[in-house]
C-alpha cells in the first residue's frame, strides 16, 4: 500500500513535468499563444489595388537616447498590395557604442494589423559605434483589406536604449 501510493505520488510529480511538452503541443495544434498568428503571417491578397491610394506618413523619435533619428522621406503614397521601400537614417551622437531597439506604433491603431513589414530595422537590436551613421530600410506592404475609411496611416518609430543584459556598454 505504502509502495503503491508512493508510486502514484512519484508519477504525479512526473506528470507535472509531462505537462510542459503537452502544453506546447496543444498550443501549437490550436494555434494559440504564438506571437505571430498563423493565418495573418503573410498578406493574404498580394494583388495590387491600383484604384486606391493610401497616404503613409513616417515619424521618428528617440527616447532618452542621444541618437539623431529621422526618415529620409516624410511621406509616401502607396497602393494597397504594393511593395514599398523607404529608408531611415540614424546617427549616434555619442563617442562610444550604444545599443538601441526601435519600437513601432501606428496611427490609427487599428491600421496596425493591415500594415505588413517585410523587412525592418526594428526586428533586431541595432548597435552603433561612436559617431556612426547608418541608413536602414523598411520594406512594407499595406494589406488590400485595409478598411475603406482609413486614408492615412502614420508609422512612428521610437528608439529605446537597451540596458541590462549586455546592453549598456
Amino acid at each position, binding site marked *: 500500500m505504502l509502495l503503491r501510493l508512493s508510486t502514484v505520488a512519484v508519477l504525479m*510529480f512526473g506528470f507535472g513535468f509531462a505537462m510542459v511538452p503537452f502544453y506546447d503541443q496543444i498550443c501549437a495544434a490550436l494555434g494559440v499563444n504564438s506571437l505571430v498568428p498563423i493565418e495573418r503571417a503573410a498578406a493574404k491578397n498580394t494583388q495590387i489595388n491600383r484604384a486606391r491610394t493610401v497616404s503613409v506618413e513616417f515619424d521618428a523619435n528617440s527616447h532618452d537616447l542621444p541618437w539623431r533619428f529621422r526618415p529620409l522621406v516624410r511621406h509616401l503614397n502607396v497602393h494597397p498590395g504594393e511593395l514599398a521601400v523607404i529608408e531611415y537614417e540614424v546617427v549616434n551622437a555619442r563617442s562610444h557604442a550604444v545599443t538601441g531597439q526601435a519600437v513601432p506604433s501606428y496611427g490609427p491603431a487599428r491600421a496596425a494589423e493591415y500594415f505588413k513589414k517585410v523587412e525592418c530595422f526594428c526586428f533586431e537590436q541595432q548597435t552603433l559605434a561612436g559617431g556612426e551613421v547608418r541608413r536602414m530600410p523598411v520594406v512594407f506592404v499595406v494589406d488590400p483589406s485595409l478598411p475603406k475609411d482609413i486614408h492615412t496611416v502614420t508609422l512612428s518609430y521610437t528608439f529605446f536604449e537597451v540596458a541590462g543584459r549586455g546592453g549598456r556598454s
Partner: protein
Amino acid sequence: MSAVVDSHGHGHEHHHDHHGGYSGIMRWITTTNHKDIGTLYLWFSFIMFLVGGAMAMVIRLELFSPGLQWVNPDFFNQMTTMHGLIMVFGAIMPAFVGFANWLIPMQIGAPDMAFARMNNWSFWILPFAASLLVISFFMPGGAPGVGWTMYAPLTVQMGIGMDFTIFAVHLLGMSSIMGSINIITTILNLRAPGMTLMRMPLFCWTWLITAYLLVAAMPVLAGAVTMTLTDRHFGTSFFNAAGGGDPVLYQHIFWFFGHPEVYIIALPAFGVISQVIPAFSRKPLFGYASMVYATSAIAILSFIVWAHHMYTVGMPVTGQLFFMYATTLIAVPTGVKVFNWVATMWKGALSFETPMLFAIGFLFLFTLGGFTGLVLSLAAVDIQLHDTYYVVAHFHYVMAIGAVFAGFAGIYFWLPKWTGRMYDEKLGKWHFWLSTIFINMTFFVQHFSGLAGMPRRVPDYPLMFETWNKISSIGAFGFGLSQFLFLYIVLKAIRSGEKAKDKQWEGADSLEWTHLPSPAPYHSFETQPVIK
C-alpha cells in the same frame, strides 16, 4: 448505546496511561500515538492561524485608509503572499489532518494509524517548513511578494527569500503526501470487523477521498516549484519567455494542483459538518450514499476545471466554454450535499449548542460563497471580476468562513471526547456570534468594492472605496480579537471544565462516542470492536 468497554481514562486516571518511554518534551517529539500527533497538528495549526491572522491584520490596517500609512508596498505584498501560504498550508490543512489523526482510528475501530512512525515524521516536518517561511522575511529582499499562487515570471526574479519558500513548499508537500498515504492505508486496511466502507462515518469517507486528491495533486505543485527553482538557478527556461518558456504554462501547472487543493480544504470540512449536523438533529444523515457519491464526483470533477482561474490569459473561446461548463457542473454534487444537510435538519429534534451553531453558520455562509463561485465560473462575468475584491470575498467565504467554521464546529464537538472536559457553553455561543458578525462585516462588503472594480493585492485604492474598506478592516480586527476568546475557552475547558459524559451529545452515534469513555484513553481499540 453508551457501552463503556474501557474503564481507564476517567478524569485524572488519564495520566496513568502508558505514554511511551519518555516524558516532558521528548514524549511529544518521539510520539507515535495518533492522539498525541493529532493534538500536535491542532496546536500547530492554531499557532499558524494566529501568525497568518496577524499578517491579515497588517493588510487590513494598511487598507483602513487610502494612501500609504503603515507599510511600504513591498512589505504589503509579502504580507498578502505569506498570509495566503500560511493559512492554506500551515493552518487549514494541518488542522484537518489533526482531526483525521484523532478521529479516523477511533471512528473505524482501529488501534492507531497504519504507519505510526511515518505519522510522527509527517508532523515534525511541518515546524521546519513553517520556520523556512518565516526565515524568508529576514533574507535580503525579504519574503517573496509574489502572491500565494507564486506566478512566474515574478518568482524567477525574486530574491533569495523565494528559495526558502520553494523548499518550504517541498517540505509541506512531503508532509501532506505522507499523511495521506497513512490515512488511505489506515482506512482501507485497519477497519474493525463489520465496519464496511459504506458504514463508515462520513468524516472518514471525505478524508479518504481528500487523501487521494492530496496524493495526486501535491506532487504536481512540487513539480511546479521545482521548475521555478531550476529556472532560477540551473539555467532552464520552463517559464522564462526569453529562453523559449511560457509564464502561462506555470499557471496551468499550478492550478492543476490548485483547484483540487480547494477541495482538499473543503472536503474534510464537509466531513466534520456531516458528523455535527446529524448529532444535533438527532437523526441519521439524510442520503448517506448520495453524500459519498457526491463527494467522489466533486473530487473527480476538481481535476478538469483548473483553467477557470485563468480565463483572462487569452485561451480560445472553446477552452473557456469547456472549463465554464465543467465548473458549473460541480455545483450539482455540491448542491446535493447542501440539500442533504438541510434535509437532515428537516423535522429533526434540533438543539443549538455551539458546534451546531458553527455548523449552521458554515452551511449558510459556505453556500453563499458557493453562489459567488458560480457567478465567477461564468467566463463572461469573470473577465470583469478577475483579480478584484469580489474574488477575495468569494474565496474567503468558502475558506476563511467555510473551512474555519467547520474547524471550530469540530473542535467544540470533539473537545469533550479529547479532553474529557466540557467547554463553557455560554462563552462558546459568544465566540460564535462575535465571529459570525465580524467575519461578515469583513468580507460581505468586499463583494461591493469588488463589483465596483477595486483590485486585489494593492496597498492603496481610490477614495471612493474608503467606506467599504473601513467597515472591512473593523470587522477583521474584531474577528481577530474574537479568536483569543476561543483560545481562552479551550484552555479553560482543559483546566477547569466540567467533566464530560462518555456520550456528551445524545445524538452522536459514531464509535468514539458509543464505545469509548471521555477522555478517550491513550490507547483505544487494542482489541477491535465487532460492528453488527
